[in-house]
């Protein structure tokens, strides 16, 4: 366990623009493809997020997935949600991650069970995301939630989620301020589509000190965009984008173009970009090179 900051933290704190992306851990014990995809993406980005039973669909543990990437030399961002674990499990997973060398954590509430593939499961939510961020900060200070001393304190780069386009904006700001006060050092946003909303978000949040990593999603088709609008909480893809995809003879290429364009437009309002490739991994390199150019 070393206390050297992660590359992601060093770059963000050194005012360098960062790129991250994400790979969904597999449903099953075979992680070959998962690791291969992450390795392929790694040269283009600073870190690779591993999602936590995303959309409440059961997959392998993000802790195991993050450790696998760490072992491969790919810097992970370990996503951890409050949906499936109580405060003991959350703390022990955080400490476990630290022991395996994982430093970047993205601490989330988690999508509701009703979206997933185990709808009859009991939801936990023993802590909420603000409390989880507070717990991670306490662990870094060498004590657990009950105030007991730790044998070896972890050092995390703590991230939280933000939804810049959700209304009422003022209400979401209250929670963000609490997240930052509790110890969030960077904010990863939901997929954004409106540069004006990003500008407003940046104005409101940048003074609070947290670094902003804006989310960009690669849309493969108009059908996928409509599906996301109907099924993924908090994402609102505008009709203009859906029409553009619909009228395109090559929707994959158009989807990547749209993502490149959005990324360039929002770059002034963030400190980094998180790319959700949604199966179009080749888009990641394209977006990174178009924004960096």
């Amino acid at each position, binding site marked *: 366990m070393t206390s050297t900051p992660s590359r992601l933290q060093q770059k963000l704190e050194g005012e360098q623009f960062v790129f991250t992306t994400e790979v969904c851990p597999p449903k099953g014990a075979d992680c070959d493809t998962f690791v291969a995809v992450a390795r392929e993406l790694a040269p283009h980005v600073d870190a690779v997020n591993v999602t936590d039973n995303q959309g409440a669909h059961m997959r392998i543990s993000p802790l195991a997935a993050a450790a696998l990437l760490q072992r491969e030399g790919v810097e992970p961002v370990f996503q951890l949600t*409050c*949906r499936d674990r109580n*405060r003991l499990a959350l703390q022990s997973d955080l400490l476990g991650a630290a022991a395996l060398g994982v430093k970047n954590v993205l601490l*989330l*509430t*988690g*999508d*509701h069970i*009703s979206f997933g593939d185990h709808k009859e499961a009991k*939801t936990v*939510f*023993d*802590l*909420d*995301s*603000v*409390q989880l961020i*507070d717990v991670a900060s306490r662990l870094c200070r060498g004590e657990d*939630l009950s105030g007991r001393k730790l044998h070896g304190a972890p050092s995390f780069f703590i991230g939280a*989620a*933000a*939804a810049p*386009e*959700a*209304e*009422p904006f*003022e*209400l*979401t700001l*209250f*929670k963000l*301020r*609490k997240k930052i*006060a*509790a110890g969030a050092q960077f904010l990863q946003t*939901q997929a954004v589509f409106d540069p004006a909303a990003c500008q407003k978000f940046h104005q409101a949040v940048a003074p609070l000190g947290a670094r902003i990593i804006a989310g960009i999603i690669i849309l493969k088709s108009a059908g996928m965009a409509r599906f996301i609008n109907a099924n993924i*909480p*908090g994402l*609102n893809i505008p009709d203009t984008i859906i029409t553009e995809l619909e009228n395109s003879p090559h929707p994959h290429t158009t989807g990547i173009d749209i993502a490149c364009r959005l990324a360039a437009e929002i770059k002034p309002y963030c400190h980094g970009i998180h790319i959700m490739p949604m199966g179009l991994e080749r888009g990641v390199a394209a977006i990174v090179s178009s924004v960096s150019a």
Partner: protein
Amino acid sequence: MIVSRQKPIEDILSSLDGCRSVFLIGCTKCATVCKSGGEEEVWQMQEELLAAGIEVTGSLVIDEACHMLRVSRDLRSKQQMVDDADSILVMACGAGIQSVSAATSKKTVAALDSLFLGNIRRFGQFEQKCSLCGECILTQTAGICPVTACAKGLLNGPCGGMDNGRCETDQESPCAWAEIFERLQKTPQSCDLESYRPPKNHGKVPKPGKLKLPK
């Protein structure tokens, strides 16, 4: 009040498998208001049991089936009918059913599913407002309970799925935190959204819950 709903009749009949005779119990309070175990429903159940070839030895609609002493006393007053039955079918909440099972050694069959502590919006419409968490925070949340009204029970504000003030789990329902926010805008209260709310103390309500008033 405790909101309950009758189990499907097929399930009730299959739980009564092998019983030729039944004694029926309802409750005059919550189960009556929910139309799951009042006088009228007990009578309807009697008809359905008869139609299924099960004899009903007698029935009793108890004033508060959750009252253990009263249930024992009332059952004793119908001792013969109870003794004649193979089992007792109870149309009351889970608390009421257990007052009965504690008072008799007969097979006790549950006719209702107990759902939640509910408010009555209007006749026949019930809503959960409180989940009996053991440390009420309504004073700090503008009189709206996020432990219950938020699908995730979040204490520090809305989740990322909230949009246009609606809940991610149901676009028809308001997000509890949007409601709290709106109420605070209209009537400033002695609470604010800025302060950190620590995790709940789940030790406050032991499981099973017990309370003994000092003498």
